[in-house]
């Protein structure tokens, strides 16, 4: 459980930091690296990556949009979703981050189990 919580927190923290300098997809690199370093069951690694970015991106988008009184989300959601739905735009943001990081974490975890067999853990 501890490993899971640490994974979630580390992925979130490092994703936030690296995205100050690097493109958005560097969240995948972070999730991949963390789940290679912290051994967990594959499905837990996936959930850690998924949950971490779901919370980070969802939280950030929600926080920004709340301070903006959803002005931008009201204008952008019809462009992207075809209807005026600020909350949906926040959820979509969160899930894009979540799936990307989730599969990256799963890949990291799977790679560890291949490479890890040949090295002492």
């Amino acid at each position, binding site marked *: 459980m501890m490993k899971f919580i640490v994974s979630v927190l580390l992925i979130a923290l490092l994703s936030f930091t690296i995205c100050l300098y690097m493109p958005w997809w560097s969240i995948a690199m972070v999730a991949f690296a963390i789940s290679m370093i912290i051994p967990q069951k594959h499905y837990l690694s996936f959930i850690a990556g998924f949950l971490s970015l779901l919370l980070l991106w969802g939280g*950030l988008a929600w926080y920004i949009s709340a301070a903006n009184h959803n002005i931008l989300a009201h204008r952008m959601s019809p462009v992207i979703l075809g209807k005026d739905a600020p909350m949906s735009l926040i959820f979509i943001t969160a899930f894009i981050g979540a799936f990307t990081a989730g599969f990256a974490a*799963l890949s990291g975890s799977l790679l560890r189990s291949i490479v890890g067999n040949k090295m002492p853990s």
Partner: protein
Amino acid sequence: MRLLYFFVSLVITIALIICFGSSAWLPLPLGRFLSPQQGIWQNAEPVNQDFSALLQMPQIKDRATVYLDDRLVPHIVANNEEDAYFIQGYLHAKFRLWQMEFQTYAAAGRLSEIVGDVALDYDRGKRRLGMVYAAENMLKELEANPLTKQLTDSYTAGVNAYINSLPESRLPVEYKLLGYTPEHWTTLKTALFVKMMSQTLAGASDDLPMTKARAFFGDKALRVLFPQVADSLDPVIPKGTLFPPPSVLPVAPASADSLYLGRDSLAGMLKEIEKPDPGNGSNNWAVSGAKTQSGAPILCNDPHLTLSLPSIWYEMQMTTPTMNAYGVSFPGAPGVIIGFNDSIAFGFTSSERDVLDYYAVQFKDGSKSQYKFNHEWKKSDIRIEEIKIKDKPSLFDTVAYTVFGPVTYDNSFPEATLPNTPLATRWKAHDASNELLMWYYLDRANNYDDYLNALQYFTCPGHNVAFASKSGDIAIWQQGTFPARWNRQGLYIMPGEDSSYMWQGFIPRDENPHIKNPERGFVSSANQRAADSSYPYFIPGSYDLYRGIAINRKLKAMEGITPEDMMKLQTDNYNVFAETARPLLLKYIPAGKLNENEKKYLDTVANWSLYNNIDLRGPTLFTLWFDNLKKQVWDDEFEKAGVSDLLPSDPTLIEALLRDSAFRYIDNISTPSTETLADVMLASFKKTAANADSLDAQNKLTWGAFKNTTIYHLLKTKLMPFARTGLPIGGGEHVINAMKHDHGPSWRMVVSLEKETTAYIVYPGGQSGNPGSVYYDNFVDKWAAGGYYKAWFMQREENEGEKKLWKMEFVGR
């Protein structure tokens, strides 16, 4: 097995990154686009954003401060000119970068770079009109003059200082949507912007359809259908004013009657390049102190343009030791464009004069390198235009330049297969000029002489420049450099083989229509013809008529005028055109032949107050009826003539019918019978009633619902969520409050030149171009309701104003 799982998972991860990171599968790269730290969420400005900042920039010579008030209007306090213009450029970029760049891409015919080949025809049209050529000619003048060189250099440096400091995450949202990044600003872009205004306001020409119409109707008939002076004209310069005899006497070529005014069928109908909205115009007026309550002059101006978000205007105040100017600026150009200072106020309306003509040229061969001129083959300058296209190879377009200007239309444009005569464009906006110098001096003018001195630098687009000063003068000049034409010169395509058809000279500036401190106590203009037929030059144009009548009638009757009275006048919805036309319509409609339903509609028109108010049905029914009447009268002839996009004006029709109820064009030439005025009235009204039934079924019969006043984003219908629709504002064509569907008062200003200048202003937009900002459209509702803000005209010594909300400090190294 594990290896397989790993690869599957890895492939999914990579696929997600590609999918969300590019437009390969999704219409937008959603990952990049929605990433909270890089994408559009970064454009969601907190509603309580703090705009205060300390900015250290090596280009700043001295300390300078910008106070931003509660409407986000900046008040620049600088100690020298360079810093003031640098900061203006910086602020324009900070709040309007995407717009200013997009507009200059459009002017330069470069939209295909951004949006792909859908814009190719648009771009080719701009190149072939010579927009870049015109801007380059202006650039040379700007750089040759030390004053304008300095101010444009400072301005450009300011724009670029902002662009250089802009991280990708903070790019305006339109860049993220369209997937490109800004390039550096240049003075050429400023020149392009000015040329865009020239095209909007002085790029109109009906020469092509008129030439086509001449073949069918003949010049004599077209003199009636397109008269130079309307019967009810109330010109800018009051009737009875004496004009000096002309000092330039243009001579019609000996061959004009046969080669020019005859009915040859030169040039078939072409698809023309995009023409400016014929409704572009404005109102301005100034009343003398004798007519105001305070005893001080009041100047008013409301320029009518296609409205947009972000607005074409950006409000600001600029103070330096040599100026204290307040008003609106163009993001893209230095200076205050319409406004006032401590001593004077100034406002513009378009002169609507024709300064664009076409000449038919004959190339020697397909290379376009030589053309026939005065019995010889003359070499043309070939300019190869590279039009870059997003995701596609560039298109190279060859444009030949002649003594007249660029050959806009030839066998490769608009369509390669059209066997038309090549047409060269002679356009005043191509000539070198330095319009920025006018604004430089106008922003600093103290009196009438300064104003007059400033005006000399304004050549195109021609304008009626209203003026009022604290010293009590009011004046209006129709300013611009206009060709001195022989009678009917330039109404049709002219022969391009003979130098005698060229413009022979220009009207000297002091012979331009003007008036200072007239007896009637006011000056005004509303795009009507500047002078009646006693003006000694031939001045064709696309003039308005009724707004001028309405304004002058009101101003004549008013005494003890207050700024509030002026606000009421600017937002007046009374329809003078309907006042003229309705009695005629009602007189000739055979009411007995209408059914009950139609009679009900007729009663609505008959009892209408003549105000174009949003809750009334009268204006909708009247407008529909008159439109149907126009079709009944004109369509048969004009369709037969093969002329589209050109009809005689509303005033021409109504004045013709008032003169002669048996006007020959009433008859429908495609029927064997002879229609009377009563017949066409009945037919057009029955059509109107049918239109009205279907509109009523959709709840669109009231004027507000029918007009559906809309301010589109600059990307028009592609981005409707960024627009404002269904705005509750009345008015319309021929009405002082000239608000049509998406075209109308883009800035309203009332300036009372009392000891302390008081100004009331509003525009349909907001100071920020960011759709994620509360300041994107926060003036719109007030504007629609006819409300105004009182401008905070800050004085330099004012240290702590209650309106100062934020403070941006600029310091050098």
